[in-house]
């Protein structure tokens, strides 16, 4: 994308004031987005993002600069200006760049840029028809298709030189149901680190059908009661609760500065024996997967919690310095505009032994969260909140009426201790995770689990 000799000069200019590490991240990304509403393709936009991020370390200080000026003079100037933030010292050492050839784990068979719009639109129309025809109360279907081809080149003063291509495809379906007075929505957004083959092979009857079914079900639902209940959270996107409640607290971004309840607790029991929590960026073609992270490190399977014992954190190169630990292939950024830091990839609770039937049958009075919405966490305290997209009451071991407006709140570290059943039906769901280095594709996953008590906020009262 940019000549190696220019990259070498930029890495050197970045170390001209005494920095001890420099890195160049070049990004050339093609994006296509299309939207279908009211049965019509209403929006279609294509674009190309192109820019360069330069990072310099000097001990525990991190300097980052980015630019869209790709001329050699522009890049050298940007590196020199950034280097001015470091107060003098001997020039850092540059090791000769050694090109690494990576073996891609994620096969892409149809590059989205080579697929004409008409084929993408055909899938959208089919999904639209399935959702629209699901029930006469479905009044609106909104579909959003996105594909991205992100080409990156990462080089650093330690001699690293890696190129990678990441391809993302996603179809989001939102159905709105109305009975003339009220309106409710249902959503499903499957995505993968894959090409158009992923979109073409999607089971649209399932995804579009489910989005419509959720909307109609919520239209008929009662208000959710408030109080403390055992809560059963179903598999797949249900894993978002542990993404927020524990995952963020295991990122070096908060651990390195002791801003996490999990800091300095490696080897301690933080969860019941039945809980094993893993972040794995190598799962083939999953939405959160990568060949190499945004520092050029190979992604890996990181065991965070094993049989309830805290085993590890997600660590990037910079925080590794503060923590005196090794980086874990977890450094990510939305684009060249973001200083990378430790983030999740595909994070999930490993499968247990209970069947979903057993879990429901053994719950006398509680809430069953079939599909979760989004949520957020305060990483310093671990206090989290989630909305439940589709919830039911559980009575005497059976699923009862659907309820809406359920929000779960609690504290991550405490909720983790209260997991009392883990199912055997692990599945992953795609989401976008927003944090300090931008918005990133991540998978959350889990089998069905049960938490003995969570505070459920609803509108119905106790």
């Amino acid at each position: 994308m940019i000549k190696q000799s220019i990259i070498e000069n930029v890495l050197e200019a970045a170390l001209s004031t005494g920095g001890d590490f420099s890195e160049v991240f070049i990004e050339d990304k093609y994006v296509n987005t299309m939207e279908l509403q009211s049965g019509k393709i209403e929006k279609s936009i294509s674009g190309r993002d192109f820019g360069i991020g330069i990072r310099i370390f000097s001990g525990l200080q991190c300097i980052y600069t980015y630019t869209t000026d790709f001329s050699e003079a522009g890049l050298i100037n940007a590196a020199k200006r950034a280097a001015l933030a470091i107060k003098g010292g001997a020039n850092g050492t540059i090791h000769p760049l050694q090109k690494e050839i990576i073996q891609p784990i994620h096969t892409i068979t149809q590059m989205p840029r080579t697929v004409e719009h008409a084929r993408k639109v055909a899938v959208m129309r089919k999904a639209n028809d399935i959702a629209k025809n699901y029930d006469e109360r479905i009044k609106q279907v909104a579909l959003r298709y996105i594909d991205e081809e992100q080409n990156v080149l990462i080089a650093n003063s330690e001699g690293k030189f890696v190129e990678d291509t990441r391809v993302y495809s996603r179809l989001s379906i939102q159905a709105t149901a109305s009975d003339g007075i009220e309106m409710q929505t249902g959503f499903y957004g499957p995505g993968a680190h894959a090409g158009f083959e992923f979109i073409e092979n999607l089971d649209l009857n399932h995804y579009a059908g489910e989005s419509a079914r959720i909307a109609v079900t919520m239209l008929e639902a009662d208000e959710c009661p408030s109080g403390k209940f055992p809560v059963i959270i179903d598999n797949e996107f249900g894993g978002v609760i542990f993404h927020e409640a524990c995952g963020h607290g295991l990122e070096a971004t908060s651990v390195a500065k002791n801003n996490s309840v999990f800091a300095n607790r490696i080897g301690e029991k933080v969860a019941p024996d039945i809980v094993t929590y893993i972040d794995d960026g190598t799962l083939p073609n999953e939405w959160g997967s990568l060949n190499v992270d945004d520092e050029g490190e190979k992604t890996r399977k990181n065991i965070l919690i094993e049989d309830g014992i805290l085993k590890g954190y997600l660590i990037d190169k910079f925080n590794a310095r503060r923590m005196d630990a090794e980086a874990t292939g977890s450094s990510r950024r939305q684009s060249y505009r973001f200083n990378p830091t430790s983030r999740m990839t595909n994070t999930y609770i490993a499968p247990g032994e209970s069947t979903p039937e057993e879990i429901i049958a053994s719950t006398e009075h509680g809430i069953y969260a079939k599909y979760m919405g989004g949520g957020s966490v305060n990483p310093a305290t671990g206090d989290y909140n989630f909305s439940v997209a589709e919830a039911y009451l559980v009575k005497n071991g059976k699923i009862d009426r659907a309820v809406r407006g359920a929000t779960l709140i609690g504290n991550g570290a405490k909720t983790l201790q209260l997991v009392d059943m883990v199912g055997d039906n692990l599945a992953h769901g795609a989401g976008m995770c927003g944090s300090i280095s931008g918005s990133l594709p991540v998978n959350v996953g889990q089998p069905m689990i049960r938490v003995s008590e969570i505070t459920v906020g609803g509108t119905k009262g106790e």
Partner: protein
Amino acid sequence: MTINEFQKKLLAEAVEMGFEEAEVYYKKSESFRVMIFKGEIDSYETSEEGGLGFRGLYNGKMGYAYTEKIEEASIAFLIDSAKANADVLDEDDGTDIFEGSETYTKHDFYSEELAQVPTLKKIELIKSIEEKIFAYDPRIVTLNYCMLQDFSEERVMANNKGLSLNEKQNGLIIYISAVVKDGEEMKTGSFSKMTRDFNELDPDAIAKEVAEEALSNLGEQSIPTRKYPIIMRHDASASLLAAFTPIFSAENTQKGQSLLKGKVGEKIAAETFTLLDDPSHPDAIAGSNFDGEGVATQKRAIVSNGTLETLLHNRKTAKKDGVKTTGHARKPSYKSTLTIAPLNMYIAPGNKSKEELIASMEEGVFITSLAGLHSGASTVSGDFSIAATGFHIKGGKIASAVKQMTIAGNFFDFLKDIEEVGSDLKFMPGGYGSPSLVVKELSVTVD
């Protein structure tokens, strides 16, 4: 190739390649950001960037494309992509490119004085704030954010129908979050401020505000789960308003995605509620003299004393509803197509101070911040069920902080249930403003 040459060539070539109308939108910006951790610079970031969005009418349909790579070869990429994107659209919806308004207000969104503040002075300011926060109280254990950021940007819009507009904007943002600990209890408190006046930033006052905000959350108590009368502090109200702004968009009413469809001229809120959008409000930082289509912006009442005066329109939705555009076309970036959004939307203030509102409440909950609005609030149904931080009010006084809670209700009911509006109007960095509001009741669930 300079950006001017690029634009001219692109517009000329677009017409040659069969576009009936063509427009470019270019934005370049610079930014600086520093984060402080325990007296040291933890991170230091600078940037210089630019990108160009192109749109053009091809066979009556509007095609869009953008690039950040300003080089000769990108002209063909933009033209080919925009054509393909126009082709795939289902209908020509009557959108066209705008030749310009007759007059534009000339509000200045750029402060030369702010641009001249030396980097060192900005770093000293944020360092001194951090130091003063730690000195304020030993229960302050760490700051999980202590950041100062500034930006300047220039936008240019030009088309082959004679429109040529540009505007400069700058601003400075401070964001701080403090972590406090007392025994086993840990709480945070955050602060954000956006300004164009560096001299109004008083480190002592900011340190006090951050520290007090975090410390006040200590000593939490549980209260029974039930419905309570609510006072929603200005910043919490502004964030709730921001989350529900899509209900005012004509694009959403036309697509059956907002329950305000057909409600213009009707009472949708309490008499005390007036909602304004003022692109050049002196206290607000986000603003513009023209919207995403080049239409002159102006101050407008969206809701007056409870009556919905207008929806937010761009030229396309206005045409469909048979009204005039309200200048609310929004192009958040050269990377986006047009959407609809306000610039500086705020709830008009009343007369009573926040303290007076609290003093006149026998029992209730005073909400100071909300979390999870992106997922717990549905703009389609109006339902919300979201996490909140706040205090128990008893006998006209703050009795204690309340444990983590959720508040739930419906925004359309909320608007009708506003009983009093405070005098403490403040704007959030995102361009939404509100005073504190007294609301009849919401369901409160306490952890």
